[in-house]
């Protein structure tokens, strides 16, 4: 099973965990890290510590590319080849991740997550009556 860390601004990461617990049920081996009150190095340390507590490898989800959370995670990647980083986290990709993390290898899981993310933002039409 591939663990994950959700690194987001403010309380967003914890809120995702709470929402997942309501939709999917108990979620294990997923942690949330906030940038709240943390400088760059402290945030990198917090993400690294969270990854280490889950075995050192896994998927890191961040809220958006270019923000302090993604920047801190990107800085960790060179020394952590077993970590994959995905920006633009949302509930559909987290649900996809949870549903497939036991059955897919890392490359296939990451591809599926990215595809799900691309497909998850849509304009919805009125239902056909």
């Amino acid at each position: 099973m591939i663990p994950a860390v959700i690194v987001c601004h403010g309380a967003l990461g914890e809120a995702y965990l709470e929402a997942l617990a309501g939709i999917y049920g108990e979620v294990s081996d997923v942690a949330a890290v906030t940038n709240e009150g943390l400088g760059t190095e402290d945030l990198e340390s917090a993400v690294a510590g969270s990854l280490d507590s889950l075995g050192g490898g896994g998927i890191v989800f961040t809220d958006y590319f270019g923000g302090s959370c993604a920047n801190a995670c990107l800085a960790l990647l060179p020394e952590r080849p077993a970590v994959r980083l995905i920006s633009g986290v949302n509930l559909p990709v987290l649900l996809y991740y949870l549903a497939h993390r036991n059955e897919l290898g890392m490359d296939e899981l990451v591809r599926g997550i990215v595809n799900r993310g691309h497909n998850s933002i849509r304009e919805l039409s009125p239902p056909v009556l």
Partner: protein
Amino acid sequence: MDLHLDDRLLHGRILHGWGRSASIRRYVLIAAAPGGSARAAVHAAAAREAGAELVQAAPGDAPPPADGDFWLADGPAAALALWRAGRRYRRLILVGLRRPGGRRLGADVAADEADLDALRALQAAGVRCELRRFPDEAGETLPPL
């Protein structure tokens, strides 16, 4: 078969929480007073998104059960009406019921007097009523109400 109960019918917990535990090919939604066409269309769209067929029926018009079914009622009244229409189920699994001001039976289940009456009738008929939010958590059998 088991009958599940959630007043929201098809929503995230059903699709992702319960949907992951079994290969669901068809959702059968039972409503005491079937919703308007817009609500029905919304549920149909949600089922399509999950790759499953959807049947929405009044208790007296329910189809025969089939492999890969997930049966879901929108309240105790619909569950009781289904039973009284002759459709037998082993358990009634209460996933969610949110009646404002209702008697709290579980974390996500609050029932009003009409719900309680229907649940009592089902218990008297021998149906095991069980509180269970997710398939992999321990269910709690409702004591006699």
